[in-house]
């Protein structure tokens, strides 16, 4: 839910409760006031009538309500000695409305010439149900107009106020650290937003800095490792020339050498990744993918033959794309190498190159690798101890650099890697 709608919903719920309470309170307060005023009027008329009755004795016998809306009857004193003025609600047939309508009565007892009389003064009363209806109607109207103005306010006013916030949010959505994107901050007078802008700017600068430091670190570390590795490997090689070396010693040395070589490969791959990410392969040219693939297949033919694997490339036309030739070679050779090292001996590795994509299939003992992080660094498939676990990750990085898309699928026992060109 959007922030604006969220506040609007809150407001409308709070207003609904508040206005309902207000309506009830208002209703009762209004009726108290109405009764008070009507009762005052009745009292006033009662006193006027009693005063008039003392002069005009004909008024003392008026058993029916007529147009004057009062009655006076003589009553027995004993029954009414302790009578107090009482107000009552009642109904009466109204000629104009042709219906019974609520009325208000004041009953009182007064003394005239040692005789006691009961006087009832009447006046028409507000219709309560009408009043409730009215109140409900106007309350709903008030509520609706308040909600409407809140929405209007939100949409016109708040939206403008929150603009710097939405602007920065929009940019953060697509922000990529590795692309060194810059964020454009909208200057604002609102303190919180200014603080937000400032904090994000600082945060991103720090993240950017530590990201490039990290990349630089990997590159520097890899470079620094080259010389000691070279010294160690070369010293072992010199040792191998020693004729007095026993076979057992040579075996141990060989294992040490193999591990150093593995370390060298790992180091070289890390360096390659950081070079790709640091854009150190900027040159672009028209590369004939078919030529590259044929060269790779020729380079790998002995390795494939050794595993009794057949490499088959299906391609009709010349496919030329604007890429970096070295990286293109690495991209395809890593995929083919991967297929060879995991391919089931005796099976076929088939490749298809079209203008749209490059597809390579291989059979293997392993099950589907879907949902496995095969493109992640150092993720090793199976028990290939000599694998650096970086080959597919490198292929992925290169594909990304070219704007290609590298995908994996598993179908009918075959592992299928697809490079979609754009």
């Amino acid at each position, binding site marked *: 839910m959007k922030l604006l709608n969220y506040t609007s919903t809150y407001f409308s719920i709070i207003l609904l409760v508040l206005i309902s309470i207000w309506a009830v309170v208002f209703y009762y307060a209004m009726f108290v006031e109405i009764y008070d005023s009507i009762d005052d009027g009745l009292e006033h008329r009662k006193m006027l009538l009693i005063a008039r009755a003392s002069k005009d004795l004909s008024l003392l016998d008026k058993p029916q309500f007529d147009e004057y809306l009062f009655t006076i009857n003589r009553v027995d004193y004993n029954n009414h000695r302790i009578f107090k003025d009482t107000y009552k609600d009642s109904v009466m047939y109204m000629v104009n409305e042709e219906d019974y309508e609520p009325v208000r009565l004041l009953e009182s007892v007064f003394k005239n010439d040692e005789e006691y009389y009961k006087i009832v003064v009447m006046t028409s009363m507000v219709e309560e149900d009408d009043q409730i209806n009215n109140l409900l109607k106007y309350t709903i109207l008030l509520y609706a107009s308040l909600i409407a103005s809140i929405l209007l306010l939100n949409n016109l006013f708040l939206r403008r106020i929150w603009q710097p916030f939405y602007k920065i949010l929009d940019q953060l959505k697509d922000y990529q650290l590795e692309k060194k994107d810059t964020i454009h901050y909208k200057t604002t007078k609102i303190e919180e937003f200014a603080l937000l802008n400032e904090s994000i700017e600082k945060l991103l600068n720090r993240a950017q800095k530590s990201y490039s430091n990290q990349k630089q670190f990997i590159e520097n570390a890899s470079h620094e490792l*080259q010389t000691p590795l070279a*010294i160690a490997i070369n010293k072992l090689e010199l040792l191998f020339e020693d004729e007095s070396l026993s076979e057992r010693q*040579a075996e141990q040395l*060989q294992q040490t050498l193999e591990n150093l*070589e593995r370390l060298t490969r790992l180091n070289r791959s890390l360096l390659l990744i950081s070079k790709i990410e640091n854009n150190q392969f900027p040159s672009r040219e028209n590369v004939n993918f078919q030529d590259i693939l044929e060269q790779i297949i020729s380079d790998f033919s*002995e390795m494939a033959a050794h595993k009794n694997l057949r490499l088959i490339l299906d391609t009709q036309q010349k496919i030329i794309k604007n890429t970096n030739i070295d990286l293109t070679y690495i991209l395809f050779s890593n995929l083919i190498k991967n297929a060879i090292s995991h391919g089931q001996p005796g099976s076929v590795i088939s490749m298809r190159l079209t203008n749209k994509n490059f597809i390579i299939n291989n059979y293997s003992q392993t099950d589907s690798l879907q949902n496995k992080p095969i493109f992640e660094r150092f993720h090793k498939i199976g028990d290939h101890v000599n694998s650096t676990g970086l080959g597919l990750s490198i292929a992925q990085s290169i594909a990304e650099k070219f704007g290609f898309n590298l995908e994996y699928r598993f179908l009918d026992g075959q592992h299928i890697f697809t490079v979609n060109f754009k």
Partner: protein
Amino acid sequence: MKILIVEDEPQMLENMSKNLEAEGFLVTGAATFAQARDRIGVYDYDCILLDINLPDGNGLELLKIIKKKGLGDGVIIVSAKDSLDDKLQGLDLGADDYLPKPFHMAELRARVKAVLRRKIFEGQDELRIANMAINISNRTVFIEKKEVELNRKEYDVLLYLVSNKDRLANKTALAEHVWGDHIDQADNFDFIYSQIKNLRKKLDAHDAEIDIKAVYGIGYKLQDK
């Protein structure tokens, strides 16, 4: 044959010197830019191995000095940086080859010999080993005047082993040399075994007086029978 190694890392310098001295080369070392500049000014070398990162200067500057003097020395850049820029710049400035660290000794020997062949034996590019003759520019091999039919890779393997005659050529080094840098992540280099077997068969069929011997399962050594 005189070789100058410009390398600031003492152990690296020692390894390379020992290795090339064993081939019968006359090796001089220089650990700094200034030292190297002085040596180049006084002596002529057949081949110079040049490290780019020196404590007191850039090896590429030395390369410029060498080329400005019009010296015919072959230059191989040896660098820990393995940077494309350095490589391209070095080759542009007239270096003959570029060798990124770490490298195998066999690779160093092969590269040095290739440079020497190009520089010293211009035109006269036939290599003779026992009863075998290798024509470098035509990439052909003859034993007792009869051509041995080799494919591209078999030829490369043979030339590499010949360059490292009587020395151990590491299996990994051989694979990287012949099958390229990109093969290096291969699971193992077992496939080389069948390659060597084929090569041996062809050599034996022509009664070659050389033999390719497997050493401890580490690599191979080409020697006289």
